[in-house]
């Protein structure tokens, strides 16, 4: 017997939140949409919902409650869906903590911040039952106006994990009511590593810094920006990602196979076996322009929440990550930020000074001393 999910609180009304609102309305759920920012909710409140177009068709999804009050959104919801970028996870977790109840299922989509959300909620005095997450946003989407979202496609592969990991079977059954395509994995470690943006966005930007700043990004980021040398750096970062994962008992697909399965590259791109082949044969990415400035999520999000996490998990596993370390160091100077200190350190991931065995045990069975 699966506990039914009827009411969903979507936390975050950006690209992902609006796309989720559109799809989950179509599927008949009762929705509440929360954002911290009035500027974000006002255009949506003005029309009473969100307009959408693209892969899910074109239409209007009415939303009963659009609010800046986290309590109002969460109270009575069966399912709390966090659709915020990783760098907002900590603030979001603090905002929702006081309103959560033990019976509510909390999901982050995307997650891949390990125990950052659960620990932040607990530290803020919140009550957390089961936490779960997907490795990516369930949609490829972008807002075209403050109240309209264009959904290019629904993600075909959605790796899914629960905390504690030993609850995965029950949780998967429940969440499939919302996202039928989720693929369950044994623990939150398995949803960290498929975050491939971390290994291709930062090097593609760094090795084109002069061009971005000189031309305002007037070239095609993937097709023209990822040259053979840029590709080699991506390959090296991918090898580190795969090695760190393996060191923690997690098997991940190398970038070429993963992108082929996602439909981001063709057979030639996959068979070539290098990042250069992958992106040079990537039709969906062919015309995507480069960032206009280096002050961009390709660094600000993908370095501290991606490469730093891989490097830190490398420390846990005893696997060296010289390429990730080098990219983090140079990116920090380029952006004038302290990515290493401010990113997903082991401390912030909630595994501080643990050994591999201790960390795996925690992820599997949850915090000790809890009922």
């Amino acid at each position, binding site marked *: 017997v699966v506990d039914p999910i009827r009411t969903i609180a979507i936390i975050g009304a950006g690209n992902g939140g609006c796309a989720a609102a559109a799809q989950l309305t179509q599927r008949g759920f009762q929705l509440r949409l929360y954002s911290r920012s009035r500027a974000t909710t006002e255009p949506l409140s003005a029309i009473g919902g969100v307009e959408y177009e693209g892969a899910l068709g074109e239409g209007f999804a009415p939303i009963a409650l659009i609010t800046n009050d986290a309590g109002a959104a969460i109270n009575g919801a069966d399912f709390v869906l966090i659709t915020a970028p990783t760098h907002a996870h900590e603030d979001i977790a603090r905002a929702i903590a006081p309103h959560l109840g033990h019976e509510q299922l909390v999901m982050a989509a995307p997650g891949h911040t390990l125990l950052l959300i659960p620990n932040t909620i607990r530290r803020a005095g919140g009550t957390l039952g089961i936490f779960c997450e997907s490795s990516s946003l369930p949609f490829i989407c972008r807002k075209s106006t403050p109240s309209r979202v264009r959904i290019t496609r629904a993600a075909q592969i959605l790796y899914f994990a629960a905390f504690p990991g030993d609850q995965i079977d029950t949780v998967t059954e429940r969440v499939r009511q919302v996202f039928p395509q989720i693929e369950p994995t044994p623990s939150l470690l398995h949803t960290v590593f498929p975050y491939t943006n971390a290994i291709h966005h930062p090097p593609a930007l760094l090795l084109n810094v002069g061009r971005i700043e000189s031309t305002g990004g007037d070239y095609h980021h993937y097709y023209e920006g990822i040259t053979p040398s840029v590709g080699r*750096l991506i390959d090296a970062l991918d090898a580190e990602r795969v090695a760190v994962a393996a060191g923690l008992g997690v098997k991940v697909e190398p970038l070429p196979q993963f992108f082929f399965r996602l439909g981001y590259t063709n057979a030639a791109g996959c068979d070539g076996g290098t990042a250069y082949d992958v992106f040079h044969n990537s039709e969906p990415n062919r015309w995507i322009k480069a960032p206009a400035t280096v002050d961009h999520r390709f660094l600000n999000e993908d370095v501290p929440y991606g490469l730093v996490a891989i490097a830190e998990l490398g420390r846990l596993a005893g696997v060296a990550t010289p390429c990730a370390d080098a990219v983090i*160091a140079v990116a920090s100077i380029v952006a004038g930020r302290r990515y290493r200190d401010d990113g997903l350190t082991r401390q912030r991931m909630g595994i501080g000074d643990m050994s591999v065995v201790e960390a795996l045990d925690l992820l599997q069975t949850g915090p000790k001393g809890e009922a």
Partner: protein
Amino acid sequence: MSQTKVKSVAVLGAGHGGCAAAADLSRRGYSVRLHARNASRLAPLRAQGGIEARGVQQGLVPIDLMTTDVTEAVRGADLIMMVVPSVAHDYYARALAPLLDGAQPIFINPGHTGGGLHFLHELRKAGYRGPIRSCETVSLTYITRMEGPGIVNIYSYTKRLRFAGLPAKEVAALFELIKPLYPEIQQAGSVLETALSNLNAVFHPPGIIMNAGWIQHTHGDFLFYREGFTDAVGRVTAAIDAERIAIAKALGVPVIPFIDVFYESGLTTKAARDSGDISRACRESEPNKTIKSPASLDHRYVHEDVGYGLVPIAALGALAGVPTPTIDALVQIASLAVGVDYRRDGLTLEKLGLAGKSPAELLKIVEEGA
């Protein structure tokens, strides 16, 4: 041999620099013996009776002796000038070890960062036990290029070149010896000072690596300094420069900030210098304003300036206990981008003969040559 004037020069190496030196010095009245390891290098020169020079010197320049026999080249020469990449140092060390008498001076042109120390280490490995008497400039004394077999274009002499002797106590005498050949040289205190004054290593690698995608996509169709040295590239260059200066400080070696040298060399405006902004200094570089980017990453801005620049600078940092996170990161990224393991192939502490040495031991080697 305590000669006070150089009349004969053994030029070892017949590539761009070696041919330029042989042609220039011959034309200026020196007796030149030109050595190449490979007879095929000398074949076109022998066929035409010398080197065809363009630029600073013009026309066919006969060379007194062209040989593949090192002994023949160096015997009795007032000066041995090595104009070869560092990878050839072990070959010449083995060839010269039985021939050197400790007095015949050796000019390593160029030494980049640590060329003399590397050559000394190779000499010791080859069994040479006598004293060293070498000197070096940080860059080649010519801006030059081979334009065909036996044809060399010497665009100009390199200006304001830092020059040092190994051992440092010989620098004044060696400076007097080389100055007539290359009036642009400037005397530095030691080879550590020239090593840490290698400014090409400070700004070429970030310039080329952080434009790697642009270079490969357009074959370098942009202005390297004016367009390639943007704010963020300038910040990375500044971080490298700060590490270089910290190493010099820890070793008690005087070095000048990049931007001041750049200004004092007439390469940028006073306003740019005063702003302290390296990006601006490069963008406002009048002499560099029309210089295009390298067309590929297979270029001396990486091979030389990383392998024989950043790698030995980082090695000196390790010896001095000064962290070099930015240099290390750039070496790592350059190695991946180009597909060359510069930390293995470049001038490491081992190749400099400095593995396990303390700063005090390093300073003694630099001062005494042993």
